[in-house]
């Protein structure tokens, strides 16, 4: 069998790519693997690849009735869902106006909206903390929902406006000529066409909101703390305490976003490149 030089190089590059992808993924794989070890196995040296798996850590930290995991998970799901919903309620009409009824100020407003996304959270954390304290919003779901909605708003306006500008305009025009009012036009014509765009937008918002830590650690104590806070409590596990349990809790905390990202890779790419193609 004669292989051309090109084929050899091609095979080498393919193997290199696979090897690099395994290397990049390895830390995550190792975390998931460690979650099935008994504690003593988790800190054995050299690190062990083969062992008798146990579900004990998952039972203790994730599924146990005594574990706080369920409460943190509930907080994260609740806060993520309602912050994205709130952001959408404000952002969709804004995007609609900017796409279909632009004024002289629209371009300027768009730039200003994007500039608020560049505001560093650390730059405003002190006033936010004091305002929250004065308004009794510390450690409440509502407080975080409000902030995260503000954080997601620019992203959603930016992306949804781009998607709206790509809609086939004659369909919307036809609906208007048929006498559809704004609500009918939006719910019956625009919204169904926007669903792929909404999926891409919501996925990006989900990743940022689910994983957020800075506002959460500064503004929650116990009641409203999301999963990122629960995972952070394991920073004290250094030196070998609860390594397997820490791995189970961390793996459980990242699985929803990991799977959402895997399933919706195409939408993720669309979302991330929205700015590049516009």
């Amino acid at each position, binding site marked *: 069998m004669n292989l051309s030089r090109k084929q050899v190089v091609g095979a080498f590059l393919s193997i290199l790519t696979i090897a690099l992808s395994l290397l990049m993924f390895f830390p995550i794989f190792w975390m998931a693997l460690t979650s099935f070890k008994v504690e003593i196995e988790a800190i054995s040296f050299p690190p062990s690849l083969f062992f008798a798996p146990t579900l004990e850590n998952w039972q203790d930290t994730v599924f146990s009735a005594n574990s706080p995991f369920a409460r943190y998970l509930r907080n994260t799901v609740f806060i993520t869902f309602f912050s994205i919903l709130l952001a959408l309620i404000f952002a969709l009409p804004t995007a609609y106006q900017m796409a279909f009824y632009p004024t002289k100020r629209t371009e300027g407003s768009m730039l200003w909206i994007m500039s608020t996304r560049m505001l560093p959270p650390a730059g405003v954390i002190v*006033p936010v903390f004091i305002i929250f304290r004065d308004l009794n919003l510390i450690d409440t779901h509502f407080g975080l929902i409000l902030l995260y909605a503000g954080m997601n708003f620019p992203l959603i306006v930016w992306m949804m406006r781009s998607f709206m500008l790509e809609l086939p305009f004659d369909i919307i*025009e036809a609906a208007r000529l048929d006498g559809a009012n704004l609500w009918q036009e939006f719910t019956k014509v625009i919204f169904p066409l926007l669903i792929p765009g909404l999926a891409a937008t919501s996925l990006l918002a989900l990743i940022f909101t689910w994983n957020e830590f800075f506002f959460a650690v500064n503004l929650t104590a116990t009641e409203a703390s999301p999963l990122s806070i629960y995972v*952070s409590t394991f920073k004290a596990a250094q030196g070998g305490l609860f390594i397997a349990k820490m791995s189970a809790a961390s793996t459980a905390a990242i699985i929803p976003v990991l799977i959402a990202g895997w399933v919706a890779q195409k939408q993720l790419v669309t979302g991330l490149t929205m700015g590049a193609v516009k």
Partner: protein
Amino acid sequence: MASGSMSSSSTGKPGKREWRKFLSSPGLIFLIIVTQVPFVVAIYFSFNGWNLTRPASRGFLGWDRMWRNYSRILQNQDFYTVIWNTVVLTGSVVIITFILGLMLAMLLNRPFPGRSLARTLLISPFLVMPVAAAVLWKNVLLDPTFGFSTLLQRSLGLPVNYLFESAPMATVIAVVAWQWTPFVMLILLAGLQSLPDSTLEAASIDGASGFSLFRFIVLPHLKRFIEIALLLETIFVLNVFGIIDIATAGGPGLATTNLPYQIFLEYTKRFNIGRASAYGIFAIILANIVVVFLLRIISKQQEEVAT
């Protein structure tokens, strides 16, 4: 844009739909309340002498002493260390992720069996909660007694040490770069895939070599994608907080304290609202300088393209 302006003219009865121009108002008001109010309050607090341990100290410093927080910060050597750390961390991550992300995007931009699996594995670090990444690298992978760093150091005959202490900044940079490489890779991959094959074929028929294809066809086409990836990444990496809070607590000493972490310490450990707010203003100024600088590069190149 074209379709948008068409709508108001071609649908007739413009007056009837005039009110739709105000559909953005609730959103804009919401955004002003959530983002601009804290910004204005931050400016006000930065002229306060307020320390939470002394409640009576709340209030304006007075016209003669109003710049006290700023001057104290600027007179303190720590400030320059913290700014330098922020710039080094952000700059290094952006450069490393650009090189690795471009390399991986090019490797993925050719058909081979297992390609979609490789892509799935490669994007994963970006999806991992930064706090989970931090506890994982700190307590498992880099542990000085049972971690993989120890395995590697021993097998290479190097002295075994805890990397977050022996090379703190480099290690933080490595972990953040691990998380952000997939982000750059995904955007550049989309850029590569939007390059028509016919362009490349035409160029190689004209006798262009692999390198000049890359240099004169691929890179210029990618420019827009590179810019957007690095701009967005910079904005996020300037704000890195979780890994520092969890893995190093800004240390040893000030070695890994960046601007967000310094602000966090200033008000949660030293309870100094006034000075923490002034630090926050510096963070906003730094972010603006960086973004304006990057946007200027982008628009300059666009002008060159246009002319």
